[in-house]
C-alpha cells in the first residue's frame, strides 16, 4: 500500500512517517479493546502476569457463565425496550413537527422552531433534579416510560432540525399538486413525505438509538428496581459485585459492547452521517 496511490494528492508527508503515525494511533485505539476482549478469556491469575498477550489457556467458561445467566439477557432486554420506545416516539413526534415546520406556513413558525432548538444548548444534566421530581409526580418513576419520555424530549431538537432540512428538499410543487387534487396534508405526509424520507429517518433513528442505548444518567436517576435496569447501570453494579475479578468484568464488558459494535458495522453509514450531521448547518 504505497507508491501509486499516495503520490496523486498534493499534500502528503513522506510515506513512512505517515505509516508510522497511523500505526501508532491504531495501536493506541486497539490495544485497550483487544486487551478487554482477550482478558475475558483468561483466568485471573494469568491476567495478572499477562494482561497484553494471547491467553495461554482459553477460559471459555467466563463468557459462557455470563451468556447462560439470565442477568445479561435481562439487561439487554431492558435496554432494547427503552431504546426502541425512545426511537419510535422520537421518530413519530419529530417527523410530524418537522413536516409542519417544513411545509406549513403559519404565524410563529420560526419562533417555535427556535424554541425547540434551545434544547441543543444545554445538557440534560442541568435540570435533572426537577426532572426527577416531575417524573415522580407524573407517577412514571421506575418505569420504562420515565426514562424514554425525557430522552425523546431531549433528542427532539436535533431530530427535528435534521428531518426538517430533508423534508424541505421535497419539491413544494409536489405538495401543491397533491393538495389541488384533494389530498390532505396528513395523507401527503403519510404516503409521500415518509416513504421518500427513509434515509434520513434511518439516520435519525440510528443516532437516537445509540444515544439511548448508551445512556447512563437518566436511567440512573429514574429507575430504582434492578429488574428494570438497562445495561450501563447493570454493568456498573456487576463491577461493584466482582470488584477485582477483572477476568469476569472484562468478559461482561465485551459482551455488552458487542451489540453496539455489530450495529456499528451494519449501519456505519447512518451512524457516521448522523453523528457528524451537526457539522453541516441545521
Amino acid at each position: 500500500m504505497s507508491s501509486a496511490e499516495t503520490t496523486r494528492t498534493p499534500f502528503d508527508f513522506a510515506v513512512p512517517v505517515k505509516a508510522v503515525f497511523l500505526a501508532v494511533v491504531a495501536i493506541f485505539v486497539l490495544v485497550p479493546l483487544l486487551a478487554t476482549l482477550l482478558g475475558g478469556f483468561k483466568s485471573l491469575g494469568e491476567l495478572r502476569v499477562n494482561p497484553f498477550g494471547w491467553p495461554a489457556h482459553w477460559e471459555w467458561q467466563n463468557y459462557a457463565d455470563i451468556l447462560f445467566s439470565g442477568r445479561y439477557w435481562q439487561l439487554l432486554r431492558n435496554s432494547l425496550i427503552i431504546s426502541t420506545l425512545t426511537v419510535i416516539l422520537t421518530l413519530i413526534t419529530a417527523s410530524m413537527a418537522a413536516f409542519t415546520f417544513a411545509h406549513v406556513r403559519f404565524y410563529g413558525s420560526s419562533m417555535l422552531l427556535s424554541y425547540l432548538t434551545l434544547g441543543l444548548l444545554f445538557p440534560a444534566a442541568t435540570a435533572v433534579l426537577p426532572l426527577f421530581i416531575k417524573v415522580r409526580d407524573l407517577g412514571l418513576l421506575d418505569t420504562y416510560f420515565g426514562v424514554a419520555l425525557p430522552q425523546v424530549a431531549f433528542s427532539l431538537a436535533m431530530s427535528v432540525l435534521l428531518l426538517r432540512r430533508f423534508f424541505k428538499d421535497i419539491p413544494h410543487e409536489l405538495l401543491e399538486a397533491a393538495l389541488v387534487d384533494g389530498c390532505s396534508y396528513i395523507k401527503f405526509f403519510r404516503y409521500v413525505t415518509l416513504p421518500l424520507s427513509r434515509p434520513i429517518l434511518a439516520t435519525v433513528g440510528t443516532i437516537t438509538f445509540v444515544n439511548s442505548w448508551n445512556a447512563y444518567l437518566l436511567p440512573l436517576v429514574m429507575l430504582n428496581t434492578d429488574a428494570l435496569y438497562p445495561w450501563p447501570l447493570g454493568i456498573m453494579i456487576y463491577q461493584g459485585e466482582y470488584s477485582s475479578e477483572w477476568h469476569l468484568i472484562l468478559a461482561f464488558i465485551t459482551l455488552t459492547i458487542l451489540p453496539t459494535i455489530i450495529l456499528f458495522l451494519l449501519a456505519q453509514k447512518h451512524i457516521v452521517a448522523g453523528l457528524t450531521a451537526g457539522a453541516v448547518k441545521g
Partner: protein
Amino acid sequence: MARRIAIVSAMDVAGESVPQVAVRGPSWDGRFTVLILFLPPALLLFTLFVVLPIGEAAWYSGFNWNGFGKPTNWIGFDNYRFVLGTRAFWLALRNNGLIIAVSLAIQLPLALALALTLAERFRGAVALRMLFFMPYILAEIATGLIFSFVYDGDYGLVASIWRSFGAEPPHLLASTDTAMLAVLIVIVWKYFGFHMMLFIAALQSLDKTLVEAARIDGATRSQALRHVVIPLLYPTIRLSVFFAIIGSLQLFDLVMPLTRGGPADSSNTMVSFLYNNGISRMRVGYGSAIGVILFVICVTFAFTYKRWFMRDE
C-alpha cells in the same frame, strides 16, 4: 350543545378570515388540522421535560429542600453562595477548563492530522477511519470500565508495563496527582475520532481546484496546506471547538466508572460534581443551584461563541 356551536362558529370565522388562501392552494382548514395534530406532541414533550425543569430549577434553587412535600424553607441565594464557596466547585470548573485545553491543544491537531492523512484514497484508509471512529460510539460507561482496567494498579496494562521495567506499579486513578490526567487521556482516546470525521467530511466537500491552482502557481505542499486548505477548514475547526467545549461541559458518564470524581474531588467535572453533591443526596435546592450555574455557563458560552466566531454561518 352550546360548546359545539361555539366551535363551529370559531371555525367559520377562521375560514372567512383567509378566503384567498383557500382558493389558491392549501386551505386554512387543512393547515389548521395539521397544526393542531402535528405540533403539540413534540412541543408538549419538549416543554414538559426540557423547558419547565429548567425554570423549576431556578425556583427550587431558592429553597433548602430534600424533594419531599412542598418546598417551604426559602433561603434566597444561599445555595448559590454555598456552591460558589465550595473548593470542589472550583476544582470541577478547573477540570472542565483542562478538558477544553487538552481538546484544543492535543485532540484537535491530532484529529486534523489524521483527517488530512486519511482523506486521501489508499487501501485501508476507510478501515482506519472506521477504527478511529469506533471509540466514539462505545458507551462512555463501557469506555470508563475498560480504562479502569487499563489503569488498574494490580492487573492493568499500565501496571504490567511498569513491572516490566522493574518498577512498582502506580495506582493512577487513586492519586489526586494523576487521576485527572488519566481521565484526560481517556477523553482523547474516545473523542478524537469524532473530530477526525468532521474534518474528513469537510475535506471531501472542499473545492480541490483551489489547491491545484495553488500548486500550479508554485506553492509547495506545506504552503498549500497552510495557506489554502487550513483556511478553508476554519468553519469546521470552529465547529469542532464548539463541540469540544459543549462536550466538556456535559461530561459525566465517563468519569463515574473511572474515579467517581475522586479522589478528594480532584477529577470531578461540573456534572459529576452536581451528581455527587445534589442528586445522590437528594439536595434538590443545592443541586438545582449547581444546575442553574451550569445552564448559565452553557447558554452564555453558546451565544457568545455563535456571535463571535460563527456569525457568517
